[in-house]
């Protein structure tokens, strides 16, 4: 035998940690892309972002446990919840954010407003669902065994579904007329107006898509974690750290950052315990701000 028993055990553990890092990292990537998108297009920051994550989880929970949905599993859930998230995002943008945009200093007003929305949503969740945390059943139960390595199907599904979500989003951005319009508004708002792109509609669409992405992330990760009515802030901070670390407005930077941070969290959790994850994130954020304030791939000003 080349390796001692201890070494092999260590390798198994490392593999577990890497798998966990990859699956959470992939969901972070989904969330970071959504956040970067809204920031890149509308230049406004959405403080209620993390609460839309929970909204996705709660919608799925209602379908499974509230309405006792039996048919089609998560596919049906996604088919119902994703359009619902889109409508919620689009409606909120039109009703609450769009009217502010006509005013002076609207970026700050949008921040205040979404902060209020975040408080409202977490209170709403507490009233409707109670303070006790909810959890969702895994997409796919069981494990995949390769030799002596054991992978949970759940982790594999989470990884591939978030990856699928990101790829679909990327495809939409590059291959549909609306996607191109979104990119156009992000690159040059005046130019977009000149060619006749309805900016207001693109803003609302962008907001709605980001709501869908973070809601999708919520459904995926709520199977591993719990849905907690008050966790919106923590989730938003994580998405924010990923976005800042990757570089504001850079989608590719956000993707790299998400996997690096997913891994960091998994390794810190393994070495020191889960509660150190957040501390590690803040150290990373501070280090980023000091050493490379524009982020991994940000262009800087």
């Amino acid at each position, binding site marked *: 035998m080349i390796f001692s028993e201890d070494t092999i055990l260590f390798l198994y553990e490392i593999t577990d940690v890497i798998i966990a890092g990859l699956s959470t990292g992939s969901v972070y990537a989904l969330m970071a892309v959504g956040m970067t998108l809204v920031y890149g297009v509308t230049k406004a920051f959405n403080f209620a972002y993390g609460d839309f994550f929970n909204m996705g989880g709660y919608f799925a929970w209602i379908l499974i446990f509230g309405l006792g949905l039996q048919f089609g599993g998560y596919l049906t859930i996604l088919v119902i919840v994703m359009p619902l998230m889109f409508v919620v995002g689009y409606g909120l943008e039109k009703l609450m954010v769009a009217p502010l945009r006509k005013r002076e200093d609207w970026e700050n007003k949008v921040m205040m407003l979404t902060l209020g929305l975040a408080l409202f949503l977490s209170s709403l969740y507490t009233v409707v669902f109670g303070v006790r945390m909810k959890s969702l059943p895994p997409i796919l139960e069981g494990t995949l065994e390769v030799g002596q390595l054991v992978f949970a199907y759940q982790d594999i599904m989470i990884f591939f579904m978030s990856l699928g979500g990101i790829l679909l989003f990327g495809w939409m951005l590059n291959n549909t*007329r609306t996607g*191109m*319009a979104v*990119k*156009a508004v992000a*690159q*040059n708002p*005046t*130019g*977009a*107006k*000149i*060619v*006749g*792109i*309805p900016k207001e509609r693109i803003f609302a669409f962008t907001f709605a898509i980001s709501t869908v992405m973070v809601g999708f992330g919520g459904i995926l990760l709520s199977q591993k974690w719990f849905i907690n009515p008050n966790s919106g802030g923590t989730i938003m901070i994580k998405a924010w750290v990923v976005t800042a670390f990757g570089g504001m407005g850079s989608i590719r930077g956000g993707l790299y950052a998400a996997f690096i941070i997913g891994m960091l969290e998994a390794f810190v959790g393994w070495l020191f315990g889960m509660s150190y994850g957040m501390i590690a994130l803040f150290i990373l954020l501070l280090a980023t701000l000091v050493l490379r304030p524009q982020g991994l791939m940000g262009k800087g000003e």
Partner: protein
Amino acid sequence: MLKVTDLNAYYGEAQVLEDVFISVDQGQVVVMFGPNGHGKSTLLKSICGLVEKVQGRIEYKGQNINGLATEKIVNMGITYIAENRELFPHMTVMENLKLGAFSKNARPYEKNNLGRVFSLFPLLKNRQKQVASTLSGGEARMLAVARGLMSNADFLCIDEPSLGLQPSLRHEIFSTIKQINKQGKTVLLVEQNIPQIAELADRIYVMEEGQISFEGNKDEALNNESLKEIFLGM
């Protein structure tokens, strides 16, 4: 085709245009002269719905378009070709052109217009895949004009196309505008640096301090003592 009456435009509190009137008939080339910073660009932008506060009447094909959203104006067949180009820097030439045909009015003619634009600017055809931010000044200018043509507009507001170009390229702009006009497009042009552009003009306006200070055809303009400075004093 276009009739502007009693137009006042403001940037915040500052009034930029004062009681401006112009009129452009179908198929014409109308040239607007005047010193820099006196409101020529603002007039073009006002017509295209790009200025926030505009009072007065802008009549296009009999309909008042003042106050309409830019996308509606574009859809009616008016396009603005900006002096600072306003391209999409990280997109290719082709993507910029395709976005030029974003409005509903332009979509059915996208292929046709693409062919026309490429025959007008063969250079762009060879650079389809090049990213816009890497184009030279002259190429970017061509792309801006080409993108405007992709909108299938009948009425082109072209803002200082020669800005920032070397003199040898100015003649090219002159002949491009001539050709565009020959294809049936109506052109409202702001141009300072090409004296011979006046030869193309069916009507000439001069704007000073936000007001129209001269209106007439090119013979009247060339014979006007006080305008000599503008045409000869380049």
